């Protein structure tokens, strides 16, 4: 079946002499005239070698076009298993996906929608609308591509494939049960013939998993459970099967990949129940961890747990960024994460050996110590109690899912951070608490900053405070892009899209979009012109130098 279809595809391609949309060799190179995967390339650096736009000429960066999300089913290609009318109360979608750009077309998504947009003009080529059955519509990170086929995930937990050229659906497969509060928001990552997808959802105590699906037919190739089963390695970090088999650990964000080591790196989600750990004493592997997975088999090569026994929703799902660097004079293959728990961690990505841990924010008050392995160990007195514990960061964390950036030119890892406090109240005093088991009451955000971290020391080289309002600091976690033009694109928390000097953090240019960018900015060369594309709320903006 698979062979026949593949042969057919080859035959079709040969007869029309049209190469497939994506040449897979592009995925391992720095992106130039394409953006073929969520991070642009596999490294997660979100660094571009393009330098048409520089610190010297960025003042002339101007709007090329705006595309406002069209969510109407009229004129759309419609799929899905849900009712003909969208459920009431769904908010207008926000662009959290990073568009792919191939041959002058941008492909991107929001919950229940995929669009193909002409990258030259910002006009729609096609729109695919999904009839949802429900599920959490919190966001969608984007599409993946294999040959001529697109893949995306839906809030009601379907894995859907479209023909990229026409937007027509090829098939859809249910990959998780939304009745158990699973939902999917991930961007599929394609490695060889593995389309890798992870599930999300932490409203109930359910197990997390990562899957490889076949690009041909969507069937499961392998599944990796984020928590062990009895007898597995790591099972001794849980008290019993009850706890580990409902222990969460959702791999809800796209990972990164080293083709030479053939390892796929993902960050896993928080354990369940979310805000109390009384039924799960132990480290709770492999939640809140950076994990290296062999993409051909789904077997784990190594892990490093960034937060043992988390009790504050600080998953370690944030991008594991691959850095080819030098530590103590020795070249090292590294992986770095600015983690939601308020710490920056650097590991050797060949085997997970810890290199360094540093604190990213001042307000964090939940750690007892950094242990010998570099892991922040929680002060259990800061777990939720009936009378409340004052905790920083809040459950948003010191940073969150928006993609950070690393520039090999400056050696700096860029991340948006926030310092907020909350009071955590234990509300479920049953011996077997469930779900979140505690209520969070926000106190306030007292600081937010764009920070540049020297990866070799973990120290903050520069920190730029973000916007202020009447109630405190605004913004924080943000999508970032660094370029060989000496620029860092991000936002200021005050509704401005900003180009910063990557070396110093000085703002050089801004566009007052009125709302903070909501995805990771990207860049590519098209017709010899360097474009910068960013999503903010329900609109996608493209900028280029004035011709």
């Amino acid at each position, binding site marked *: 079946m698979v062979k026949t279809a593949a042969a057919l595809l080859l035959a079709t391609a040969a007869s029309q002499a049209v190469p497939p949309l994506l040449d897979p060799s592009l995925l391992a190179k720095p992106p130039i005239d394409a953006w073929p995967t969520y991070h642009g390339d596999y490294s997660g650096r979100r660094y571009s070698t393009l330098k048409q736009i520089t610190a010297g000429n960025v003042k002339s960066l101007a709007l090329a076009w705006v595309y406002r999300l069209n969510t109407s089913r009229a004129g759309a290609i419609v799929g899905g298993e849900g009712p003909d009318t969208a459920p009431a*109360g*769904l*908010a207008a979608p926000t662009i959290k996906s990073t568009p792919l750009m191939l041959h002058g077309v941008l492909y991107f998504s929001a919950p229940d929608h995929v669009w193909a947009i002409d990258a030259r003009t910002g006009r729609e080529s096609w729109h695919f609308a999904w009839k949802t059955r429900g599920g*959490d*519509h*919190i966001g969608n990170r984007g599409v993946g591509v294999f040959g001529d086929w697109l893949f995306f995930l839906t809030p009601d937990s379907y894995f859907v494939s479209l023909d990229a050229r026409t937007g027509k659906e090829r098939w859809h497969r249910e990959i998780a*049960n939304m*009745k*158990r*509060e699973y939902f999917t928001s991930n961007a599929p990552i394609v490695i060889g013939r593995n389309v890798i997808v992870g599930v999300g959802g932490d*409203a*109930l*105590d359910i197990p997390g998993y990562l899957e490889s699906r076949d690009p041909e037919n969507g069937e499961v190739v392998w599944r990796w459970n984020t928590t062990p089963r009895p007898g597995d390695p790591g099972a001794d970090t849980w008290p019993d099967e*009850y706890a580990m088999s409902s222990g969460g650990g959702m791999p809800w964000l796209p990972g990164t990949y080293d083709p030479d080591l053939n390892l796929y790196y993902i960050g896993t989600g928080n354990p369940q129940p979310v805000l109390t750990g009384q039924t799960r004493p132990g480290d709770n592997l492999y939640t809140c961890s950076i994990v290296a997975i062999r993409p051909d088999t789904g077997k784990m090569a190594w892990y490093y747990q960034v937060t043992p026994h988390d009790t504050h*929703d600080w998953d370690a799902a944030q991008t594991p960024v691959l850095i080819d660097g030098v530590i103590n004079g020795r070249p090292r293959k590294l992986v770095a994460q600015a983690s939601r728990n308020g710490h920056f961690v650097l590991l050797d990505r060949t085997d997970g050996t810890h290199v360094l841990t540093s604190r990213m924010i001042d*307000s964090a*008050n939940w750690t007892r110590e950094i242990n010998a392995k570099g892991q922040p160990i929680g002060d259990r*007195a800061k777990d939720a*109690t009936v*009378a*409340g514990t*004052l905790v*920083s960061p*809040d459950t*948003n964390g010191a940073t*969150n*899912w928006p993609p950070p950036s690393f520039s090999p030119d400056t050696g700096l890892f860029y991340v948006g951070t926030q310092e*907020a406090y*909350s*009071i955590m*109240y234990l*509300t*479920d*005093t*049953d*011996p*077997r608490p*469930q*779900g*979140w088991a505690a*209520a969070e*009451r*926000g*106190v*306030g*955000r*007292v600081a937010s900053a764009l920070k540049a971290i020297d990866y070799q020391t973990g120290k903050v080289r520069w920190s730029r405070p973000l*916007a202020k*309002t*009447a*109630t*405190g600091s*605004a913004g924080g*976690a943000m999508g970032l892009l660094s370029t060989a033009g000496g620029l860092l694109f991000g936002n200021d*928390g*005050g*509704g401005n899209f*900003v180009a910063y000097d990557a070396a110093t953090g000085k*703002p050089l240019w*801004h566009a007052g979009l009125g709302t903070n960018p909501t995805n990771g900015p990207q860049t590519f060369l098209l017709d010899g012109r360097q474009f910068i594309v960013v999503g903010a709320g329900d609109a996608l903006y493209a900028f280029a130098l004035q011709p």
Partner: protein
Amino acid sequence: MIRPIARTGACTVAALTIAASLAAQQPAPEFDPAAVERGQQLLSTECGFCHGANGRGGSSGPDLTRSALVQTDEGGKQIGEFVRAGRPDRGMPPFALTDAQVSDLATFLHSAIRANINRRAYRILDILVGDPKAGEVYFNGAGRCATCHSPERDLRAVGAKYDPPTLQNRMVLPRGSVTRPGTPAPPPHADRNAIRATVTAPGAEPVTGAIVRLTDFDIVVYDAASGQMRSWLRNGDAPTVVVSDPLQGHVDLLPKWTDTDMHNVTAYLASLK
């Protein structure tokens, strides 16, 4: 939808959070309360010995609220089939429940699962565990609260004004205003505790007002007396902007609070009625 705080990265405004959580405490009438009650009784008497009185697992039976079969059950269909067949190999006998009983049991289990899911509706319990006397000592001593506040003046009867969790939150940082469910919150810059800025343009008189927005590129302040906003573009240090926070004392205390001190002072303020 379900978790707007956790993963949006959006700014958390205390007033809005409080308003949202108050609103969320009005449960949607999704389940017939009488059926839930009957189902709970049935579970307690028929199933509780093994599965626990609340279905979360007991001496020998698994947690029903975490069961995939229960979570994915459609209106009692799968639960009914399972219960009537039993699971003799695991020691569970068949139960001859009527259709109505199955329906009640399923309604209770689904409502219990919904309550676990709906964290916006979690009820905060009795938080007044602190020692009011110790709280008074902290208020007048280490906390330096008495520098600005007095139980005879601004805090008179404050314990009657707010529910204890709101009182505790506002004691820690009283940003924004508490609104009743369904009442729109006023703009944050209209609040008397708004962070303020004094803006001095070259050759102009200083202007002071609540910060609407302060970025590297512009400053907007709100003048409560006139009800108007004023804005300036910023170019480096011009105009000069000096920020002052009426709640700076509260902000400075944030890293210093112990939870015990916080509970004690909350108990003390709650006693001012």
